[in-house]
């Protein structure tokens, strides 16, 4: 049976409301997106929603106790909590620069955890 879903695109502040009709994995109709990225997003949402995870990691010897981090690419939504479990146990030593890789392939996923702020050494 064909299914229908309304999806709000999260890619940009336009937040397009996209209507998508599909049968299993096959897209029958898709409309409402202002740009092609929206269509791709909606298709991905049906198959396997992907999200960039942002969180923070404990820092030792820094001028702040946390460094904010993100996955360098979107990861499956259903794996987000697995990555959070890994992040909970992580410790990193100051200094940290923006873009520093904190950990490669968390929970066996094809992504890295990278720092999104700098942390200086605490003097």
């Amino acid at each position: 049976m064909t299914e229908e879903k309304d999806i709000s695109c999260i890619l940009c502040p336009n937040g397009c409301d996209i209507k998508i009709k599909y049968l299993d994995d096959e897209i029958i109709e898709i409309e409402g997106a202002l740009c092609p990225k929206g269509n791709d997003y909606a298709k991905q949402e049906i198959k396997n929603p992907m999200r960039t995870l942002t969180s923070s990691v404990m820092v030792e010897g820094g001028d702040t106790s946390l460094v904010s981090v993100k996955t360098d690419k979107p990861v499956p939504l259903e794996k987000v909590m697995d990555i959070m479990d890994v992040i909970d146990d992580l410790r990193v030593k100051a200094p940290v620069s923006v873009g520093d890789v904190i950990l490669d392939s968390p929970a066996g996923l094809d992504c890295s955890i990278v720092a999104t702020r700098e942390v200086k050494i605490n003097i």
Partner: protein
Amino acid sequence: MMKKELVIIGAGPAGLAAALAAYEDGIEDILIIEREERPGGILNQCIHDGFGLHKFKEVLTGPEYAHRYIDKVREKELEIMTNTIVTELTDEKELKAFNENDGILHIKAEAVILAMGSRERTAGGISLPGDRPSGIYTAGLAQNLMNLQNIQVGKKIVILGSGDIGLIMARRLTLEGADVKAVLEIMPYSNGLRRNINQCLVDYNIPLKLSQTVIDVKGEDRLESVTAAEVDESFNPIEGTEYEIECDTLILSVGLIPENELSKKANVQLDDTTGGAVVKDNLETNVDGIFSCGNVLHVHDLVDFVSDEAEKAGKAAAEYIKKGHKLNKDNIFVEAGSGIGYVIPQVISKEKDQIFSMRVRKPDNEKTIKIAADGKILHEENFEKVNPSEMIKIKVSSEKFKPLEKSTIKVVAE
């Protein structure tokens, strides 16, 4: 007394962008004053992504967005005085500030840019009923505690208000292991961006309860429960709909207020609706040489627009300093008419192309925004969807203003 060409109050996204724009236009004698330990403002605690799509055409987290500006400010060697609080500002552009190292500082500026940002509406500010146990936080405070100080604020959470910070915190708390029971919104629609409802609530099965509010708060030392109820069209609780939610934490995401205490001291005229200054099209206030931009002028939904606005203020301040006198004759007043909450700027000159920033009063479909004067429509634009949470910007060419006789134009949504 220390003398500076340009003093900028606040080193958040507005202050940093304003400083860089003024520098680019030839002003080098700049002092940015910041009360926190480091520049970046609220972006430092906004560790989620979604910033920079307009400005950099890529998705950045808050700290990354701030870093781009901080890096440039460092490169140009612009002075940021951190841990410093400005306590006085006069209409003669004299400031009093203090910090641990210098004690009290007296500064005289040729031009001042107000970039102090906004603060959160509190439990008192919304007359939250019931007890006052621990466990009641504003959303930004909870965000600060969690993201900067590594303090978990609670385990069983209710969020009142569905503004963006509240939605972001619903996800953040869930990721850190808390149980977010519900987000209550007194309005029949959310005040947050659509994409945040999707990726923060829908993704984690957090219910959004529209037309509901908190009518009681219970707890002796720590919060024990809140009572929620549905509200009618006048926002009064409907009898018989109340229910109790057991929780240890209540997060308030109920609006931001531009922080204009210093502006008032300098006799800057404020707009009752925005809570920010009344500004001309170059973002100059009624006080000669004092400019305003960012959330202290009006609360923005996107930092990208804050940066744009701040650049405009920075350029205008630079022009003011270089010319050393009143910049232009602004003589047309801009009014928000039916369906429109507010319009910025409130005063414009006929000579320049204008970009009006505005918010509609309520969400709607198929609306036309009309800019009219002398009984004629100068410009109109159609919108498929409008939402108070999403600021609308409309560009109008100066050609349209030139034939005007009357001194007021009106913006309406029909």
